[in-house]
């Protein structure tokens, strides 16, 4: 049984013991856990392990094939990198929740059935929100609440889809699904929320920048890539994903261009990069799926590296925006150099991992004859050069000094960043060995002369475009502003509709009351007029008035009697 222990559970269960340890010991223990999980993952053969019966259903905790293995492997490596980066972190809440979050993500990609997937899907949501709340301020608390509501909603929709899927097919196995059926559509919607599809994406740039610096590094790796895995597993070859992905890549890029907050910019950039992965899943050929898995690995690594560099720069200066940072390269040369490697990777310069993985996706599009999506992704790639690869290192480390850093990043942080940068370069220089890990038996040689030249052209000319506009001061001025996005719908429009509706209801309520009061007053006045001291009916004594009424009644009776 212990041989079949899911690697993710080592992280989840192991993390629960962490608070019992002394802080110094705890950091070492939290690095040991992902290392153990990595060893366990590598020792497991491909195939089905760890099945057990529950309520008459077979739950599969370990279904290992090439696709699941790549995602599990990069998640465990990301957990290891995060644990090293957070070595000095003394907040037990963040330490424990980050490991449970990573472990749940590993469990989710290895789960072979939809019920286990759902359980770990929700666990990632619940564990990760503590990384946002750990910032311990009002903004983070509210952003965390919004994040949690949206993530739990994704889980609830997933559950509804799973139940309908089970009723329709009698199976809870997690395999290919159809987006055209109701259950398949619901599951796609749930996955789409977590994968930050356009207009379902606002939780991402809303929540990630408000987490702690350590928290946003951890958050960048898991949730969205877990969703990409679920897409690749369930919806490979679903055509609509090509267009959704292309829209994501452009939408995220445009918003990243006009974002001044460093971590929010990276969140939009992350969102745009997810677009490439979603397009690849939509194409669905073996080359494309291999490209999706491979580029997921690349984008986890370079987003981790960029978020780590951003965290180091922000913690050294206490400033969050590009316009208030600058010139840190002098005081933080290591971090600056590593940030440049991260930037080169996201720009997919030859020699970095994104060059060898992004080209798989673009080739799969040309092979499938999808010219428009291919052009859109090429445009997004050019924009990535501008909004992240140039703006981030330039404004933080090289532009005119606006801030001064107190120190270079601590040794452990630099170690984690260096290791991540090294991985990016190793994959970039040894594409053959890396492709062997990917699903789909890919044989592809990225380093052709034509490919190198065209990619360099794309990067350099896009950079030139930005440099030219900046030289003529035509680039957007972003200081002291925030951009509204789709979250405006539920943070401003919906509340204002609700409050307008509320004030309408109260207006009607008060007007009705006022009218009723007027009527009542009139009635009382009428009664008073007739029966009051001066009223016509009060002129005689009550006996007289009674006699009058008796006479009236008699007359009425007489009339009725006569009519009969």
């Amino acid at each position: 049984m212990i041989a079949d222990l899911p690697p993710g559970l080592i992280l989840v269960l192991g993390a629960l013991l962490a608070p019992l340890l002394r802080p110094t010991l705890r950091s070492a223990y939290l690095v040991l856990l992902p290392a153990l999980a990595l060893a366990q993952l590598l020792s497991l053969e491909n195939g089905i392990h760890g099945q057990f019966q529950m309520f008459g259903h077979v739950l599969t905790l370990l279904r290992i094939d090439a696709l699941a293995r790549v995602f599990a492997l990069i998640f465990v490596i990301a957990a290891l990198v995060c644990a090293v980066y957070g070595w000095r972190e003394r907040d037990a809440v963040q330490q424990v929740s980050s490991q449970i979050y990573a472990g749940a993500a590993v469990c989710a990609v290895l789960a072979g059935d939809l019920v286990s997937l759902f359980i770990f899907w929700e666990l990632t949501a619940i564990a990760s929100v503590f990384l946002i709340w750990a910032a311990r301020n009002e903004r983070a608390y509210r952003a965390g609440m919004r994040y949690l509501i949206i993530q739990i909603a994704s889980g609830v929709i997933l559950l509804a889809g799973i139940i309908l899927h089970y009723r329709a097919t009698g199976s809870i196995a997690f395999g290919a699904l159809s987006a055209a059926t109701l259950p398949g559509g619901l599951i796609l919607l749930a996955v789409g929320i977590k994968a930050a599809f356009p207009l379902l994406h606002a939780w991402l740039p809303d929540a990630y920048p408000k987490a702690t610096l350590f928290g946003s590094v951890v958050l960048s790796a898991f949730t969205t890539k877990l969703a990409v895995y679920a897409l690749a597993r369930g919806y490979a070859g679903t055509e609509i994903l090509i267009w959704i992905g292309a829209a994501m890549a452009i939408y995220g890029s445009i918003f990243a261009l006009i974002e001044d907050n460093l971590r929010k910019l990276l969140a939009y950039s992350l969102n745009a990069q997810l677009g490439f992965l979603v397009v690849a899943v939509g194409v669905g050929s073996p080359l494309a799926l291999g490209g999706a898995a491979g580029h997921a690995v690349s984008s986890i690594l370079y987003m981790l590296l960029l978020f780590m560099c951003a965290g180091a720069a922000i913690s050294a200066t206490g400033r969050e925006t590009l316009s208030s940072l600058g010139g840190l390269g002098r005081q933080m040369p290591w971090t600056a150099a590593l940030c440049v490697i991260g930037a080169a990777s996201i720009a997919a310069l030859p020699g970095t991992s994104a060059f060898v993985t992004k080209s798989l996706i673009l080739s799969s599009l040309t092979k499938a004859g999808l010219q428009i999506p291919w052009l859109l992704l090429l445009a997004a790639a050019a924009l990535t050069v501008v909004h992240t690869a140039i703006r981030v290192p330039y404004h933080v480390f090289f532009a005119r000094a606006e801030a001064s850093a107190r120190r270079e990043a601590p040794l452990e942080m630099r170690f984690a960043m260096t290791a991540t940068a090294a991985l990016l370069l190793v994959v970039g220089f040894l594409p053959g060995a890396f492709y062997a890990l990917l699903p789909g038996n890919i044989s592809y040689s990225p380093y052709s002369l034509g490919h190198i030249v065209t990619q360099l052209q794309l990067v350099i000319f896009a950079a030139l475009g930005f440099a030219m506009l900046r030289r003529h001061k035509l680039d957007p001025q972003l200081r002291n502003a925030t951009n509204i996005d789709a979250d405006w719908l539920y943070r401003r429009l919906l509340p204002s509709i609700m409050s307008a509706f509320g004030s309408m209801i109260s207006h009607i309520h008060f007007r009705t009351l006022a009218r009723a009061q007027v009527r009542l007053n009139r009635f009382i006045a009428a009664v008073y007029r007739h029966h009051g001291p001066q009223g016509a009916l009060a002129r005689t004594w009550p006996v007289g008035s009674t006699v009058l009424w008796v006479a009236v009644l008699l007359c009425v009776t007489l009339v009725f009697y006569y009519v009969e």
Partner: protein
Amino acid sequence: MSHTEPRTTTTARTSRTAMLYRVLWCVAAVLGAVDFFYPKHVAYKIEEFPAFYGIFGFVVAVGAIFIARELHKVLKRSETYYDR
């Protein structure tokens, strides 16, 4: 303290930026020229256009920055917009 260190003067920085800008132009020109000297294997006709990737990257970058700039004017709010 770091802010007592001598800083690069503005003129030195400007000349360095200007040089970097010129280098960027030269690299771009070389890359564009290289396009004529190797056999292309293209999937689409549009790729046969000389320096297609470079020109496409340049036009997209400049165009998108202008679009984004206009969009920013519409979408920008004060930093404390959501805190009120």
